[in-house]
């Protein structure tokens, strides 16, 4: 249950960060992605701030065997820069650019009862489940590794 409580707190802090930074707002994101228009560099500060805190945390995590709640620390082990990584990232970027919404802000925006967020998140879930179905068909039983990041 400690894991669920931590999940809730992490979700709250993550969501508050997305709201405070403005990243929950699609126009803020497209303002950053529109290099040829009037460019709003704010999002670079969001990433910079997040990495500044996360970098020492991951360095610490690498040296620890287990997390505070006693479970092993699960860091990604894949090293190969392969086709699924590159093609998937390319497709993701097109989706992100089309609407100015990526997965976490989409979920946060559900909390504002935004109909646009509901449409985006439903389609995103369909895309994720489609990937799962395709992956299971290609490698029956194993599935493609679903390791995050």
């Amino acid at each position: 249950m400690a894991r669920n409580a931590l999940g809730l707190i992490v979700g709250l802090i993550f969501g508050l960060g997305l709201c405070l930074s403005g990243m929950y707002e699609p126009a803020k994101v497209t303002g950053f992605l529109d290099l040829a228009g009037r460019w709003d560099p704010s999002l670079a500060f969001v990433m910079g701030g997040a990495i500044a805190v996360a970098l020492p945390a991951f360095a610490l995590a690498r040296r620890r065997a287990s997390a505070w709640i006693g479970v092993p620390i699960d860091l990604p082990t894949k090293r190969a820069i392969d086709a699924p990584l590159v093609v998937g990232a390319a497709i993701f970027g097109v989706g992100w650019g089309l609407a100015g919404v990526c997965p976490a802000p989409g979920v946060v925006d559900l909390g504002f009862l935004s109909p646009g967020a509901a449409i985006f998140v439903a389609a995103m879930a369909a895309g994720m489940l489609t990937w799962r179905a395709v992956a299971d068909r290609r490698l029956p039983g194993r599935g493609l590794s679903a390791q995050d990041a």
Partner: protein
Amino acid sequence: MTIDWANFAPLPALAGGLLIGCAAALLILGAGRVLGASGIVGGAIEGRKGDAAWRWSLIVGLIAAAPLSRALWGAAAPVFAAGWITLIVAGFLAGFGARLGSGCTSGHGVCGLARLSPRSAVATGVFMATAFATVFLVRHVVG
């Protein structure tokens, strides 16, 4: 290049970024998991046995942050300029692509770069490039 000074807000952006970094730090050190939104949501809706409840808790926290930020500093509801067909295509591509590429803005762009992972650096470079290109096409070529 012209800077959009009217909307450029480095201080809230930096403060929000620091909070996002704290969330990532808390999840990896506290529960041993990488804060990657697409992986967390994907695992939740697949209903992985024994590994879904914490994901749903995190999703509830994300959603609850919206009314909380409205109460704390009057955050306004987001405006979705894209029409519903665009939102469906965008959502599908973002969901499928993030799972195929093992991560999204948070998993690769924040946690992966913070882990100094070459895989995540490549993924972040690629999705940034296609996102810049997509906005350029939509706003300056087609639009």
